């Protein structure tokens, strides 16, 4: 069951927008990181079920953070949430091991569909 969600984004507004798109009655635990480096550290400490990852961030980009997380956990479920919807950005993050890409601004239905898909994947892995 998906419970722990880590949101990695340098924008507090983007983190707030993502959280607001999720139902309040599912018992999700939210954790937040403000750049890629913080995201990797929190990932390793918390082992969230899903990590939402922005790409353009200070200190460490989302690309670097995905690479680093995948080195430690090949089964990490990382959903990239980005404004950079160039085809090259999408193929790069998928090649790095990201689970899927959602574009900003997020739509509730897209986010819920992504979580349901991730839930299925998680059950198969377990």
């Amino acid at each position, binding site marked *: 069951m998906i419970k722990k969600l880590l949101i990695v984004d340098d924008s507090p*507004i983007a983190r*707030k*927008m993502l959280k607001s798109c999720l139902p309040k009655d599912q018992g999700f635990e939210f954790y937040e990181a403000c750049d890629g480096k913080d995201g990797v550290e929190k990932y390793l400490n918390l082992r969230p079920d899903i990590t939402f990852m922005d790409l353009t*961030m200070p200190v460490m980009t989302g690309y670097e953070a995905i690479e680093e997380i995948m080195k430690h956990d090949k089964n990490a479920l990382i959903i990239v949430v980005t*404004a950079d*919807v160039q085809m090259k950005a999408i193929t790069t993050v998928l090649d790095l091991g990201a689970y899927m890409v959602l574009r900003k601004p997020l739509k509730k239905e897209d986010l819920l569909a992504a979580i349901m898909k991730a839930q299925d994947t998680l059950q198969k892995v377990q």
Partner: protein
Amino acid sequence: MEIHEDQILTGEEGEILQEIMNIAFGKSAADLADVIDTHVVLSIPFIKIMQVTELPVYIRDHVKDYKKISIVEQNFWGRFKGDALLIFSSGSGKELIAMLQHGQVEMSSFESDPIDILERETLMEVGNILIGACVGKLAELLKDVVTYTPPMVVVERYYTDALSGKQFDADKTAIVLKTDFSFTEGNVSGFLFLVTSNDSIKWLKDALRIFIEQYE
């Protein structure tokens, strides 16, 4: 002249605007990448409020490392109105021509043109895509509709000359949204500045509040 309190965005308003700018420039980069086979590397947008008279110095501080610059400028107006300045580093025009040719974009109409006209046309086209998609998306997210003047282009001038002709209204406050970019292929980089005056600030504050209410 001082900046009045009602002309200043709060911290949260600035963050919302920064995120909207991030989304808007992401859209414009994707639109450009559809035309040119490249990846536009985006930076985190930056927002600053200043007196309009400070603007030329602020822009010059950002472009002073470039030997020469080219500028594509478009005015836009709706409830959100202002000036978009897309500033390219030296040599970007010729690099873009080469990239368009490798991307097999239809260049036959330009073949008989001298290189400076071709460069001007290319910068104008690329500028039109980047500015139009960025400002258009920003306006769309804030429930506004904007129209544009045709782009004006200054090609390969020293930055002091390139900016010297600009007239700024000393009584106005400017909200400057800056994004810097570079292309992974070709030596092309630059800045996009969106400058909107205090005429838009009251509307902008309301529009930002309405935008974020969707996520409360």
